[in-house]
């Protein structure tokens, strides 16, 4: 370029140019090194953090198994309620959110704050914390329409347990409750708000009912909104369980018992399956799920007849004359000839003590059959002394008394079979022959539960098998042991029970039913010493109910190959025959409806 003239008399400062070169090099070195450090040296670590940023593992709740009776009538079911929850991580201003929830639901702000603070440490920051449960349905729509203003507040569905049969099977079902902090810490499969069984079958069958939670991986944006959801492991619902209980029967028995306190067990003597397990009074187990009001709780707590008690398995009573069924077995196995007779004059003398037969005038000469039929006490007074306490106590224990039957319900009582050692330990006195005499007719220290009676009577029918009482439909029979009574002797005692129910002067004649093979043994357990009114025993209805006798009736009924053991126990109900008799009779009619009324 000829017209250009290189007359550069200006040179930029050399040090300045060097400075600029240095600046460029500096820029390159610094950022090359830094990018190397971040992307190559720590790249994997940041890749993982980035993955964790956008991936969240969400629980998929598993539905709790439902429970039905033998015919499929629901006894425990789930229904959906809605709750307001806060997701901590997505809530910019928790206080404002709580204040808003308090306004929506008209609950006190302080209460909500307390609830939030109590629970926040038990949930992950992206899991909802339930603030208000059981949202009334009419509130859901208005709240839902404003939720877009409140990131972090959610309406979440929550499964609730419901027992449609309420009181009728409350003791069998038990109830559920939210897992406690301790349970949450112990069991990593539980999360806040999960329900667990607390009582009854809900507690005993927890493992089968609970099911298995699933998990889903969610890709979320910075606001926690899920963009993509992938199930990692599916949730498995808990098992649906059918019971051997027949809810219709259960209800009808309840009806028959009217307002009496007591229990009725209807058991299949061949399988141990329980068709009915009634205990009265009862309570509404739904209240344990939804919460009691003060009034409701007081009504249960202060009730004079303790409705929370499951009388079939938790209450222990003297077995009274029903015990003679066991004594008969003990005598037969000792080789006593059932035809041997004892003379009953109405009173039995032991030293200078007198033991009365229930019949003031005595029964005359009685053999074993008639001792059961008339429920003669003197026969057993005398025979028991021959057997001795050691043999009787041992025999009773072998027949399932003094230990739990193994029914799958919590808090079963084991009863008491007193012996020498027991008395010395508990009472601090030596065993007397008088104690043996008392024991022989099921009075004194002896205590049994109705379910033990049912298991023993069943063993008489099934040839000596002590079956575990089963609540689950079609459960495999479980033999817990064998009584020492031979099948022949079992049959003999069962026949005597038939006579008691069917022959004239039999004490259980009230349960005689046309066309049904029935047998039974009554019992009247004295609560206090016999009260005499002059020369006459006080009648039950003349006494305060707490002093009245307990009425027992252990029975069986069979027709067309179907048979049941029915144990009726009426607490302070009065005489075995007069009080428990009509109840048992009506139950037999329920189980075997008379031909002409059959559909």
């Amino acid at each position, binding site marked *: 370029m000829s017209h250009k*003239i290189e007359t*550069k008399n200006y040179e930029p*400062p050399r040090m300045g140019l060097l400075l*600029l070169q240095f600046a460029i090099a500096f820029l390159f070195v610094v950022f090359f090194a830094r990018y190397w450090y971040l992307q190559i040296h720590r790249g994997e670590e940041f890749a993982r953090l*980035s993955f964790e940023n956008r991936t969240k593992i969400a629980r998929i709740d598993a539905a709790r198994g439902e429970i039905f009776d033998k015919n499929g009538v629901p006894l425990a079911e789930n229904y959906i309620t809605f709750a307001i929850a806060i997701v901590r991580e997505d809530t910019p201003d928790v206080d404002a959110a709580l204040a808003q929830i308090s306004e929506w639901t008209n609950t006190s702000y302080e209460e909500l704050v307390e609830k939030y603070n109590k629970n926040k440490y038990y949930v992950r920051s992206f899991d909802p914390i339930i603030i208000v449960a059981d949202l009334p349905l009419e509130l859901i729509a208005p709240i839902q329409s404003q939720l877009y203003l409140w990131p972090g507040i959610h309406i979440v569905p929550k499964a609730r347990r419901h027992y449609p049969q309420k009181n009728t099977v409350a003791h069998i079902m038990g109830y559920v409750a939210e897992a406690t902090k301790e349970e949450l810490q112990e069991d990593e499969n539980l999360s806040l708000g999960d329900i667990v069984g607390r009582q009854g079958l809900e507690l005993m069958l927890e493992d089968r009912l609970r099911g298995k939670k699933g998990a889903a991986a969610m890709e979320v944006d910075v606001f926690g909104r899920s*963009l993509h959801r992938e199930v990692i492991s599916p949730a498995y619902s808990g098992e649906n369980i059918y019971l051997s209980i027949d809810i219709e029967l259960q209800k009808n028995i309840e009806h028959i018992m009217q307002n009496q306190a007591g229990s009725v067990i209807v058991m299949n003597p061949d399988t141990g399956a329980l068709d009915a397990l009634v205990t009265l009074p009862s309570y509404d187990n739904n209240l344990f799920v939804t919460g009691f009001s003060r009034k409701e709780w007081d009504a249960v707590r202060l009730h004079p007849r303790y409705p929370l008690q499951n009388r079939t398995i938790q209450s222990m009573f003297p077995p009274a004359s029903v015990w003679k069924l066991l004594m008969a077995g003990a005598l037969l196995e000792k080789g006593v000839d059932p035809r041997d007779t004892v003379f009953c004059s109405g009173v039995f003398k032991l030293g200078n003590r007198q033991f009365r037969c229930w019949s003031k005038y005595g029964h005359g000469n009685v053999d074993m059959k008639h001792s059961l039929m008339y429920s003669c006490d003197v026969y057993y007074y005398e025979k028991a002394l021959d057997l001795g306490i050691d043999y009787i106590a041992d025999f009773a224990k072998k027949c399932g008394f003094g230990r739990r039957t193994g029914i799958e319900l919590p808090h079963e009582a084991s009863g008491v079979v007193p012996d020498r050692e027991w008395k010395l330990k508990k009472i601090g006195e030596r065993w007397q022959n008088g104690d043996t005499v008392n024991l022989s007719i099921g009075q004194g220290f002896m205590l049994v539960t109705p379910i033990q009676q049912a298991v023993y009577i069943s063993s008489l029918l099934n040839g000596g098998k002590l079956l575990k009482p089963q609540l689950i439909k079609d459960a495999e029979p479980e033999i817990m042991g064998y009584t020492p009574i031979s099948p022949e002797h079992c049959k003999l005692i069962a026949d005597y029970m038939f006579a008691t129910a069917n022959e004239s002067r039999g004490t259980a004649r009230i349960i005689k039913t046309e066309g049904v093979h029935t047998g039974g043994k009554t019992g009247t357990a004295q609560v206090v010493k016999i009260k005499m009114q002059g020369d006459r025993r006080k009648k039950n209805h003349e006494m305060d109910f707490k002093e009245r006798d307990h009425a027992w009736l252990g029975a069986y009924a069979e027709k067309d190959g179907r048979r049941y053991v029915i144990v009726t126990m009426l607490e302070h109900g009065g005489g075995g025959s007069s009080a428990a008799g009509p109840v048992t009779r009506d139950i037999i009619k329920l189980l075997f409806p008379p031909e002409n009324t059959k559909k």
Partner: protein
Amino acid sequence: MKVFNTPNKRMFLDMNWALFITAIVIFSVGFVNLYSASSIRLEDGITHTPFYERQLMWGGIGLGLMFAVILINYKILERLASPFYFFVLFLLILVPVFGKTVYGAQRWLDLGFFSLQPSEFAKFSVLLMGAKYLAKDGETLGWVRLFKLLFIGLVPFALIVKQPDLGTGLTVLFLIGGMALFHGIKWKVLRICLVIIPLTLPLSWFVLHDYQQERILTFLDPSRDPRGAGYHIIQSQIAIGSGELLGKGFQEGTQSQLRFLPEKHTDFAVAVLGEEWGFVGSVGVVVIFCFFLFCIYSTICEARDRFGSTLCAGIFFYFFWQVMVNTGMVVGIMPVVGIPLPFISYGGTAMMVNCILIGIVLSVSINRFVFKA
């Protein structure tokens, strides 16, 4: 003196084409990256906010401004420097009186039809005034001249920092300092400065606003506020780091698409790039910027007079400063200061300022030869 360069063949041939093309390349990279950064993934797919379209518009306007500036003979700027400088100071004084407050800072003058940010003009005025002052004498700076020069920067600095706008204020100061160092400072003076400046820095802590102190503390320890200011720093590093060697791929950056990355189309745009293009892309951008600075450097070497070269050196430091502070912030070696990355971050004003400055450098490159009459 000629006010305009006449467009002719000579001018076309002498222009620093490398600088121009590099600027276009950086803009293109930034534009492509912005397209990805402006997308958000929702449940039903990816949606775009139209930042990238507007960036293209700003780019077009910027290019127009650049050509307009090329046509101006840079020598005329030397004469305009003083009046312009005092005019800008006047505007800066008006800001606290009439300015409108946005986000707690008073930076804008509302002219009715549009808003003016005098601090943007302050950068130009300080560049021009500084270059003019230094061009008078090639002698290295002694105490007196150094203080006079620093005074040119300190007056607008004080006014801008008061707004408060620490980022722009520091930019102004850095420009003056850079030009002084480029020009040369007497060794005895420099020696003392190197001792005194580090000593006075801690004192400046006490004049900082609370939020500025907070930012510096958070920079030193992001975990002290992981959900607030530290969140930006942490998420930005996660975004870049997770890109690893080759990146997650274009529009595949989860940190940005799922909005974990804040300010991803403006201040943190280069983090999106690092996440999607990895180490290769990130270092690529650094290399392009280095080459870009080298292109400016070549014009500084060739400038025919001291005013031209000092002015270009100021522009060099201006770009250097922005790359340093922005990228440094994104990779976590600088505190969070709202300074955008030239041509990569979205923003109209910055785009226009950058284009004008490149136009000035190109104007110097065209006029690098002296002609005989």
